[in-house]
């Protein structure tokens, strides 16, 4: 029953999509027709249908309707309700349906909020957005239908991967998707603005909100994924340069660059083409990202071959969209106003260009690092791994000038600034940063080649962004975001330099010394939970003054059978105490890993600050 509802509503959505695509060129030629007429009702019907199908899938998951193949493959009656619901998007089919849902809802919001803009621009945006929606609908209906029926109906499902049964990971995909899909509106509207010849201030002002919204959701989505990796993957890092993570970082770089460019476009009416190119790139990256992750190309190209129809569809769809946008770009490029005169070297405009240069560089490092191994394997069957050392070696040296530019840039004036203004105050802060970094590194006892300049640059940015709070001409949201970023870099560095780790094999009752602390393995007990059994250990970590108890777990899930290690983390403002243990083959011994991670919580706080700056900017403008 639910399968039918889901299927039919998706087909109705498909039909409305086709109708809109056919009608929009006709409406385009009639000048004074209001979009809020027929097209608006079609869009509403479409969104409603997609919402219904999504709800149908959620209900199928809640009531464990195993006549649905997706539910059968990804759920189990013994799962807690919360994870039954989050299981809806914890799989390939469901996550695509979620993408589609967000796509159509965003389009609806766009249609409602753009009433005061030109008809031509609106209809064209709708047109491109509907092409994307149509592509997704076809992809879902013909290669990844979440409403496939099973007969005879099985009694029990196969369960959701236990590693996904986690609160942060349950909300991580929807948040990230809001960011990804937001970029589709930017893409469609930039093409529409290009064709209607309205890449200008008004467009910049209108699209800025969408850029910000996508950027905020993407930032928070990345944050959630990284917090999850920190406590769930169980080895204490928060970023592994894993292809799946990289894929979410790439559109972030692009959006950050785009946001800064849009600001300039709005204020000064320059960089039109660049803004359009960035809009197209951002969306292409978001979409390739989702598909790369979902199709499994990234882990190995062999999984790609498992389901050729999906892979081929993905590639064709991406190819069509990207070539369509490139074609449109070159065809209508001459419609872009070109009032570009050279910008003066010391000005805010140049600063934004430099920001963009670095963003594009970081993007290219991550992009090439992620895709290169895939190409190499295809081309000559050589397998190489590109991991953290590669990214660090290429990014860190460029980080130093980037941070310094970021400190100086926002204080420059528009159009033209005096060179000698950069001097005294900033010089003082720079000297202060050198002294602080030197003392800090000396005390920690580290003398790597890059450490000193890197610390100097980040302390410099840190001091300047704090100082900037007293400057009037910079707006508050920018101050908060930039300060958040400097705090982020500094926390990551300090965390990296000061983190301490101890690993040992212990049995119950053992005691180990580490630095000035004593780690005692006090007890072990077995808990029965609804869908897993857990082995809960109790460790006492004590030094002279105080002691804490950490209780990591080893969980044995039954559906499907999987063992996971749950770290226990005690967070304070100064540092995190992180402890995780694993079963060893020798009787009674466990591998215990204890880590002290200074300023860990500040990494999360700083990312929240960065995003908060964006939220503030939206609220202020509309309030």
């Amino acid at each position: 029953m639910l399968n039918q509802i889901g299927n039919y509503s998706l087909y109705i959505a498909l039909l409305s999509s086709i109708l809109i695509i056919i009608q929009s060129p006709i409406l385009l030629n009639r000048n004074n027709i209001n979009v809020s007429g027929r097209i608006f009702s079609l869009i509403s019907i479409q969104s409603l249908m997609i919402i219904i199908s999504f709800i149908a899938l959620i209900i199928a998951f809640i009531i464990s309707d195993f006549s649905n193949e997706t539910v059968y493959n990804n759920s189990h009656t013994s799962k807690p309700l919360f994870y039954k619901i989050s299981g809806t998007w914890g799989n390939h089919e469901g996550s695509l349906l979620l993408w589609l849902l967000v796509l159509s809802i965003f389009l609806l919001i766009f249609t409602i909020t753009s009433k005061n803009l030109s008809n031509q621009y609106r209809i064209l945006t709708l047109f491109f957005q509907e092409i994307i929606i149509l592509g997704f609908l076809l992809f879902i209906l013909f290669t990844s239908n979440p409403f496939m029926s099973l007969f005879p109906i099985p009694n029990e499902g196969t369960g959701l991967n236990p590693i996904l049964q986690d609160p942060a990971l349950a909300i991580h995909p929807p948040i990230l998707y809001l960011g990804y899909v937001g970029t589709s509106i930017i893409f469609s509207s930039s093409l529409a603005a290009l064709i209607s010849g309205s890449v200008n201030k008004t467009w910049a002002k209108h699209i800025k909100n969408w850029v910000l919204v996508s950027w905020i959701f993407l930032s928070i989505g990345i944050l959630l994924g990284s917090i999850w990796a920190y406590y769930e993957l169980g080895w204490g890092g928060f970023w592994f340069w894993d292809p799946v993570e990289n894929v979410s970082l790439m559109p972030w770089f692009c959006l950050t660059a785009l946001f800064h460019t849009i600001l300039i476009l709005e204020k000064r009416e320059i960089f039109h083409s660049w803004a359009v190119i960035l809009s197209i790139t951002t969306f292409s990256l978001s979409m390739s990202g989702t598909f790369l992750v979902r199709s499994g190309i990234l882990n190995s190209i062999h999984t790609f071959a498992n389901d050729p129809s999906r892979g081929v569809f993905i590639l064709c769809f991406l190819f069509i969209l990207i070539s369509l946008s490139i074609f449109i770009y070159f065809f209508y490029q001459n419609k872009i106003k070109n009032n570009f005169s050279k910008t003066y070297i010391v000005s805010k405009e140049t600063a934004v260009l430099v920001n963009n240069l670095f963003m594009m560089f970081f993007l290219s490092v991550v992009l090439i690092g992620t895709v290169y191994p895939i190409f190499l394997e295809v081309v000559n069957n050589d397998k190489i791994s590109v991991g953290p050392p590669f990214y660090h070696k290429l990014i860190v040296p460029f980080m130093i000038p980037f941070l310094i530019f970021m400190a100086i840039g926002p204080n420059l004036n528009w159009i033209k600034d005096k060179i000698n203004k950069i001097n005294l105050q900033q010089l003082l802060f720079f000297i202060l940063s050198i002294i602080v970094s030197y003392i800090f590194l000396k005390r920690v006892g580290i003398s790597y080649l890059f450490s000193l300049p890197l610390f100097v640059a980040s302390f410099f940015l840190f001091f300047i962004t704090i100082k900037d709070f007293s400057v009037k001409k910079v707006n508050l949201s920018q101050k908060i975001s930039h300060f958040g970023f400097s705090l982020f870099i500094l926390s990551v560095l300090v965390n990296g330099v000061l983190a301490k780790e101890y690993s040992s094999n212990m049995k119950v009752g053992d005691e180990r010394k580490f630095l000035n602390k004593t780690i005692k393995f006090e007890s072990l007990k077995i808990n029965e939970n609804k869908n897993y059994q857990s082995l809960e250990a109790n460790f006492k970590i004590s030094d002279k003054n105080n002691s804490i108890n950490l209780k990591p777990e080893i969980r044995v899930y039954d559906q499907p059978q999987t063992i996971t290690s749950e770290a226990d983390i005690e967070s304070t403002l100064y540092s995190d105490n992180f402890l995780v243990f694993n079963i060893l083959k020798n009787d009674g011994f466990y591998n215990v890993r204890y880590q002290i991670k200074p300023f860990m919580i500040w990494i999360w706080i700083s990312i929240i600050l960065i995003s908060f700056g964006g939220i503030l900017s939206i609220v202020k403008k509309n309030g």
Partner: protein
Amino acid sequence: MKIKILVFTVFYLISFYNILYGANPEKVDQISKNLRCLICQGQSVYDSQSDFALSMKILIQNKIDEGKNDKQIYDFLKSKYGEWIVYDPEITKNTFLLWLLPLILFVFGAILIIRKVSIK
């Protein structure tokens, strides 16, 4: 006196030898962080508790005890398991583009900006 000096020298040499070549757990960590655990998904040998990773760590420790330096150890592992095992690809004819492309793009972008900027 001579004996004292001799004993002292020998002791000093031994301790020096120990510092240079002795058990150096941090070095094992350093190397194993740079190796892919071949049977895990996206985990380094250092982070993994799998049998493969554990025996790998012992192997690296043995190599260090034999007095091999980092490069020798990496070369040995690469000849045994292929390039795939190291996270830090060497610059070869297969990988020079990987390292060079981002840098070329940066220079290209920088030139574009310089052309758009005037000093007057």
